[in-house]
């Protein structure tokens, strides 16, 4: 009886009910879109970090991350690399020699991180060749070629073929200088890295640093699937005795911080949307109760008890929510699906975002679980919003309510 009465009541004023349904649908859509947009940003950022910079795992000397000095070596590196390559879950393994130093042009100098790489293995690892936008990717085979970022090139006023001098210390702490020529300029989309990382060929650089063929500073491991991270990490630990094996979350704590702050931001925005929805529903349902005061009084007079009155108004809101939620979910899903394929270009804000490693193209994405969470939150919000109007209905005195004009 209450079920039928509440259902018919919501269609007494179609415009008002459609407004509530639209509010719920739009609120839900907005919640889904914001979560999907934020998650798209995180995912983009994580993918950039893992696939373009760090890889899933790295092996270093325990002190290397503190001082970034070439003297902190990974011994027996060739054996470790071979063992890792033999693992089915591993997609690529690269060995790098790294040190901090100074790069000088004819006009100025800056501190940089010098990374000696094997161009072929890095093609699979971080796909460095894909971001070279001027010059080429170590294709001349010249040992003194250097690949620098666009931002650094601008700061040092360098062009292709410009001559630079790298100054650094070798494993014996001897200061060494070497002349290099800019062979390529890359643009990674992460301005901080573009300004700091410079790449040279590993074998000659290793020799200059004084490392043996079986020594390196960093082994980067790219996995076929993130889900095997812990398993491969354990394996790497078992073969890299006395060395530090870290995953990308440990290596990029700033990324975690950014994600956490974005999470907070997302919750705040979702909260604001739900709060706005709450006011909308409270207002509409209260209006619906107040304009039915006489009728509610009559219902109480003829024997509908207060619990049933309360339930009837809650049911009315539940129906409106049960109509609005699937519509909001559908529109949200379609929006995420569409924009997830085509992406959203936020290049207007990209300069600030690329500093933090975010790409200007965002592909919103959201898993099924989050759709359910937002829908349930929306439903709970709607029901909580109905409590006050329902409570107001309970406060009515039948004899006074019937007299109301």
């Amino acid at each position, binding site marked *: *009886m209450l079920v039928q*009465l509440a259902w*018919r*009541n919501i*269609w*007494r004023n179609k415009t008002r009910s459609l407004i509530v349904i639209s509010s719920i649908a739009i609120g839900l859509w907005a919640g889904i879109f914001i979560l999907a947009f934020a998650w798209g940003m995180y995912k983009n950022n994580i993918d950039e970090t893992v696939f373009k910079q760090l890889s899933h795992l790295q092996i270093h000397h325990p002190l290397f991350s503190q001082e970034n000095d070439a003297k902190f070596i990974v011994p027996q590196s060739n054996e470790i690399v071979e063992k890792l390559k033999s693992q089915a879950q591993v997609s690529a393994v690269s060995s790098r020699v790294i040190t901090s130093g100074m790069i000088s042009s004819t006009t100025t100098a800056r501190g940089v991180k010098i990374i000696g790489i094997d161009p072929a293995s890095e093609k699979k690892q971080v796909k460095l060749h894909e971001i070279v936008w001027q010059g080429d990717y170590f294709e001349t085979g010249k040992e003194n070629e250097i690949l620098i970022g666009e931002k650094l090139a601008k700061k040092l006023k360098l062009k292709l073929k410009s001559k630079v001098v790298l100054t650094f210390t070798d494993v014996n702490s001897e200061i060494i200088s070497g002349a290099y020529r800019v062979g390529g300029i890359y643009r990674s989309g992460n301005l901080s890295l573009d300004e700091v990382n410079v790449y040279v060929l590993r074998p000659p650089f290793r020799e200059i640093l004084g490392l043996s063929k079986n020594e390196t500073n960093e082994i980067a491991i790219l996995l076929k699937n993130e889900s095997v991270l812990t398993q491969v990490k354990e394996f790497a630990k078992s073969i890299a005795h006395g060395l530090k094996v870290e995953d990308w979350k440990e290596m990029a704590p700033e990324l975690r911080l950014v994600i956490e702050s974005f999470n907070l931001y997302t919750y705040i925005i979702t909260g604001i949307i739900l709060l706005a929805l709450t006011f909308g529903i409270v207002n509409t349902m209260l209006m619906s109760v107040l304009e039915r005061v*006489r*009728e509610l009084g*009559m*219902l*109480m*007079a*003829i*024997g*509908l*008890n*207060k619990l049933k009155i309360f339930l009837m108004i809650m049911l009315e809101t539940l129906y409106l929510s049960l109509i609005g939620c699937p519509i909001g979910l559908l529109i949200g899903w379609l929006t995420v699906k569409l924009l997830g394929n085509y992406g959203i270009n936020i290049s207007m804000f990209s300069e600030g975002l690329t500093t933090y490693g975010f790409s200007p193209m965002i592909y919103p994405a959201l898993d099924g679980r989050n759709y359910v969470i937002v829908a349930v939150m929306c439903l709970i919000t709607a029901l909580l919003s109905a409590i006050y109007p329902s409570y107001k209905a309970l406060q009515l*005195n*039948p*004899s006074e309510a*019937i*007299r109301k004009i």
Partner: protein
Amino acid sequence: MAKTIIDAHNISKIYNKKMVPVKALQDVHVHIEAGEFVALVGPSGSGKSTLLNMMGGLDKPTLGTVIIDNIEITKLSENKLIDLRLHNIGFVFQSFNLIPVLTSKENIGFVLQLQNVPKKKRRQRVMELLKEIGLEDKMDNKPGELSGGQQQRVAVARALASKPKIVLADEPTANLDSISANKLMETMAKLNREENITFLFSTHDPRVIKKARRVITLVDGRVDSDEEQIPT
């Protein structure tokens, strides 16, 4: 001797006690027996509706007691009062009587549904009442599709659906034309005779007053006269 169904003892009702007190009822004593057909008359503001509300348990007196079928209702909790109204008292109001989203037959069956009467029995009783009030052809119409008189007849049928001991009607003919008012009064009188239901209705329409077998007149919240008459 007939059984006492309503016994209102020394009822007083004062509104706005803290600000400007309004004495709606003063020391009213009314005793009604089962099966009576009573008109409560008096000018506007004489306390007719207030007295009906007290007798129906919709409001509580400031002083005095109301006993319905040997139950002192002035001491009952809100939920017990609602339950008492559901099973013992039928109400007919001046206007806004029906649930606008329900059809005539659903409105009549509403109280029976609240009492959890089985569907078959409910349908039977609803059809019986629709026939009684002559609105069988309007059973699927919503209140908005009925005239004022037809709506009031449906309201009377709803008040009678659960076969209550008492029907309280607050100016049931106030918004009706004379033909509809006459028809409604005839329906009420017939049901009173045939089902022995006690009717107590407030009115100031002389044509309606003539239909009552007993007339209680209220003036300024007090019983001015209480007389029996032969209905015409």
